[in-house]
């Protein structure tokens, strides 16, 4: 995932995002979350659970407009999103689920995509007949089928076993590399973030802000164990110092 060196910057400036609780008081979830990401880069967000990562992704995806700040992204480009749950239509086959969002995708492209994700034998199955791992792959296929300029992944491999998650990560890296797109990845797995990302953003506890931004220099998909270990140590140190604000 080397920088593609193209324009088309993703510019996110969320000054404040809060929810009103049932009791009436405000709960501030995001506070001054600002970053930019050049086209072609993968940005990974790591932070404590419940810190507002999903809220941030929803704002960037345009699903939530009730916030202070701005989100600038390439106009006209499609968004591909993989939610925490697969969110497939249970009454449509795998094939129809993908075609619904990507009506212009050619059969060649789709079958290539299904092949990479090893979904070819399942195209005519209904989501209810798939395992969670397969359903997650369909969600990935759907996000790629629209040929997005922005790919948003919300813990796409959570609750999968390690071997399967590792394989899907490899497939994801292959797909991301094959296209010039900007990717946002939320995860709580530091190793996953290091394995996939060009930039690592560390988020604090609620209200979340960006504590540190670590560039991951190596352009090599297979980073050495030493590098991974040193980045992990750095992340652990930074997360520890980013104690929740009193």
């Amino acid at each position, binding site marked *: 995932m080397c920088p593609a060196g193209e324009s088309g910057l993703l510019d996110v400036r969320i000054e404040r995002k809060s929810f009103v609780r049932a009791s009436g008081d405000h709960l501030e979830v995001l506070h001054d979350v600002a970053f930019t990401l050049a086209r072609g880069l993968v940005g990974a967000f790591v932070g404590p659970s419940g810190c507002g990562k999903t809220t941030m992704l929803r704002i960037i995806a345009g699903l939530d407009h009730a916030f202070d700040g701005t989100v600038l992204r390439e106009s006209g480009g499609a968004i591909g999103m993989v939610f925490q749950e697969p969110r497939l239509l249970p009454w*449509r086959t795998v094939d129809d689920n993908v075609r619904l969002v990507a009506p212009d995708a050619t059969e060649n492209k789709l079958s290539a995509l299904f092949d990479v994700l090893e979904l070819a034998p399942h195209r005519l199955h*209904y989501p209810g007949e798939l395992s969670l791992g397969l359903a997650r792959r369909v969600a990935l296929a759907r996000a790629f089928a629209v040929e997005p300029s922005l790919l948003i992944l919300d813990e796409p491999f959570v609750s999968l076993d390690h071997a399967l998650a590792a394989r899907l990560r490899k497939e994801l890296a292959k797909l991301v590399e094959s296209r010039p797109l900007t990717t946002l990845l939320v995860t709580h797995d530091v190793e996953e973030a290091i394995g996939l990302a060009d930039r690592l953003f560390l988020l604090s506890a609620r209200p979340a802000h960006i504590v540190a931004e670590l560039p991951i220099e190596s352009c090599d998909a297979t980073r050495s164990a030493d590098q991974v270990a040193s980045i992990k140590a750095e992340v652990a140190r930074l997360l520890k110092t980013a104690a929740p604000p009193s």
Partner: protein
Amino acid sequence: MLRLTSIAIFLAAWYAGSALAGHQMLPGPAAVLTAIVDEARSGALPLHLGATLARVLLSFTLAMLIGTALGLLMGRVRLADRLGDPWLVVLLNLPALVVIILAYVWGGLTEAAAIAAVAVNKLPNTIVTIREGARALDPALDEMARVFAVPWRKVIRHVVMPQIAPYLAAAARSGLSLVWKIVLVVELLGRPNGVGFEIGIAFQLFDVTRILAYALAFIGVMLMIETLLVQPLERHVSRWRIRAA
């Protein structure tokens, strides 16, 4: 087997009742069947059944179309719900007879008035059922469609309608039976043909055999619609559900 036993018990009870109450009050199954065959031969039965069936289908379609649109609107748009709810309560509690008589007074003894009156009777029931379905729509799938910028026509067809389908089926089921009962009243009060009209004449002549003959013949027609149309449609719509082995 259980169904057959149940039907046999019903027929036996009918015979017994007929023997006890006398042929005048409750003619036996054989007499009613003969009457059905006679009426069918004379051509009167198909004519009246056809007229009633056409009214049922027209008013049912009308009520389902308008009711589904309004139900979806009220289930999704808060303002529409708050504006429409008092009207709905009025409609729900308006007796069928009042609607029919008002329709005839205002619209004359016409076909349009008859069909409108039946449709208005069924309408609130459809709205309430579909509104419930619209309220239960999955917001997660709605968000998915929004992120992927799926055009609204496709959203209605592939995301919304499949979720509404069970509610539509429920509204259709209760709707068909309700509509045909009201169509009979409409025909009795102001139409020159149809099952309701015939039953009105039979009532004046105290001809219980003919009343039962027409009622049973129409129930037969509805049973055929149910097994040949409604049930296969339901199976098709729910084909994605994993069936218990």
